[in-house]
């Protein structure tokens, strides 16, 4: 097996509050290899963005990494501070956020934003950076790139802005991209364009991608493997086809059942009773136990073992068998 670009081991993020310690990310482990797209799904508050922010060192205090290790290209990065962290961001890890307007500086021409990033991280001349800025915009499909480098962010539409953000994330040639809900603010047709663009660029360059989203359809089309998060923990991880069509964890199964599908027609949607527990009121044992159809006494005491099944794994005492679902 090839060496992973990103390797997260037992990552735990804690937020101390007056009412005790909250753990938005709790003992999460996964790898992403070169050229692979790992989808991270979960409902709001599941900790999927928090895990991404921990990797790139953007946790806002008092949130901090309390346990575990993060390795990027074999180097441990979770303890980096200040300058060392800034070098890592942009150079080795690129980031694409949900809202393309707030991730660009409205007062700088986009060409300047691109060259600034490249000059900070790459050992190239100003003229070379200018040339590469145009090339980067061409690569993400912005028409008339040579003229548009002089435009300000507000002169672009939402989809074009997200392309600029992707160009910005890729311009220093990072080996890992963290894309946090990159298409949530966009329309369906533009979303399809952006997803296709991300897939093409990563395949061509062998960039590893962490694609954080709540949209199962996007995951199905873009991701190679998928990690399902629930209440800060990794519920299930596996190849996308296995997880979506034959899930091991009852939560994944419930999530798939509640997604409206063409093939189901107008039949009632499957409902998971209740809602995800708040972090300050997590039940003992498995966090999903109060809503789980297969719950037993042991689930309420113990968070459950990590079982392995082929290429996939899940945290559950009573996983659905592949045959049972299929």
């Amino acid at each position, binding site marked *: 097996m090839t060496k992973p670009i990103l390797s997260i081991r037992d990552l735990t993020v804690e937020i101390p509050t007056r009412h005790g310690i909250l753990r938005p990310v709790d003992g999460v482990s996964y790898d992403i290899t070169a050229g692979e797209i790992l989808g991270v799904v979960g409902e709001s508050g599941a900790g999927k963005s928090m895990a991404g922010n921990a990797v790139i060192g953007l946790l806002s205090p008092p949130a901090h990494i309390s346990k575990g290790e993060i390795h990027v290209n074999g180097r441990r990065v979770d303890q980096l501070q200040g300058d060392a962290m800034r070098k890592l961001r942009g150079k080795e890890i690129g980031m694409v956020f949900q809202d393309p307007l707030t991730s660009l500086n409205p007062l700088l021409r986009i060409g300047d934003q691109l060259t600034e990033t490249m000059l900070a991280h790459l050992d190239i001349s100003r003229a070379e950076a200018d040339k590469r800025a145009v090339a980067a915009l061409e690569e993400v499909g912005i028409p008339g790139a040579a003229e548009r480098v002089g435009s300000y962010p507000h002169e672009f539409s939402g989809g074009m802005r997200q392309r600029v953000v992707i160009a910005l994330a890729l311009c220093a040639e990072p080996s890992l991209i963290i894309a946090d809900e990159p298409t949530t603010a966009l329309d*369906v*047709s533009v979303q399809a364009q952006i997803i*296709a663009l991300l897939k093409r660029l990563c395949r061509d360059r062998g960039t590893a991608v962490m694609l954080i989203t709540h949209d*199962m359809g996007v995951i*199905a*089309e873009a991701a190679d493997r998928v990690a399902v998060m629930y209440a800060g923990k990794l519920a299930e991880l596996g190849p996308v086809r296995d997880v979506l069509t034959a899930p091991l964890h009852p939560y994944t199964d419930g999530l798939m059942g509640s997604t409206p599908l063409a093939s189901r027609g107008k039949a009632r949607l499957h409902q998971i009773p209740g*809602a995800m527990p708040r972090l300050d009121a997590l039940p003992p044992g498995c966090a999903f136990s109060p809503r789980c159809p297969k719950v037993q006494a042991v689930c309420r005491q113990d968070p459950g073992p990590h079982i392995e099944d082929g290429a996939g794994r899940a945290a559950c005492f009573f996983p659905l068998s592949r045959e049972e679902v299929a």
Partner: protein
Amino acid sequence: MALVSVRHLTRIFDVSKPWLNRVIERKPKALLTAVSDVSFEIEEKTVYALVGESGSGKSTIGKMLVGLLSPSTGAVEIRGVDLTRETDAQKVDDVRADIQMIFQDPFASLNPRWRVRDIIVEPVAARGGETTGMAEKLLEQVGLSARDAGKFPHEFSGGQRQRICIARALASEPKLIVCDEPTSALDVSVQAQVLNLMSDLKDEFGLTYLFISHDLTVVQHMADRIGVLYLGRLVEEADPDALFDDPKHPYTQMLLAAAPQLGAFGRDVPPPTGEIPDPINPPPGCAYNPRCPLATDLCRTTRPELRAVRGARVACHFAE
């Protein structure tokens, strides 16, 4: 007779700069046509869905239906009463009481300083109706507890708040509820709960929904009839099965192909090209012609009328 009849509805917004800027910069007035000549009917006890991307005018139509905006030209008739032109105040008031609305953002559409009880009974209290015990009964009907009536909105999650919005909409016993993206702000598992609740309530109270959404899978699940909007124009109208199995307008075909599909692992389709044009300067002829693979000179000069094609209504010169 149809419960709602929308005829040649048009809404134009004036988005010009202030007059002094216009005089100095010698700029003409800028007029944005949000809705352009849209006609459709909603039968009683059915769900009519409007789908479209941002800027397609779907929310503007919803607002004109409930009377939050007035049409520039055209008319909305509900039970045969044209709300903007009817002079009999009693008649207008009667019809108004039959319409309610559920908004997209359950955090912005509940007054944070009011107790849930007061929020829910407001549509009835405002007309001087009897409200004793009403909030408690409605809360139980939408799957919350009667004890929640004394709480404030911030004590509830997004899905629970949307249930409160639904309870408020039901309070005045409406016939028509306009739902503007009611589940877009919710997680998938909560969305399933709210959609199921809405289906149950529809059967129980004999409601009619105008369901506005950008999510094709949700629309397919809920709707009896679907209207597809592009740049303020109705481009296709059909039953869900016909629309999804056999889309006739090139825009609908593009939209269906672009929507992410659960079964399409690693699908590599050429993504759609182009973007929605500027609604202040829409292209002449068919609004979709700059992106359309079938476009000819006819499309660039003449706007296609909606015409019947095999049970659907399509605004395309070449649909057959």
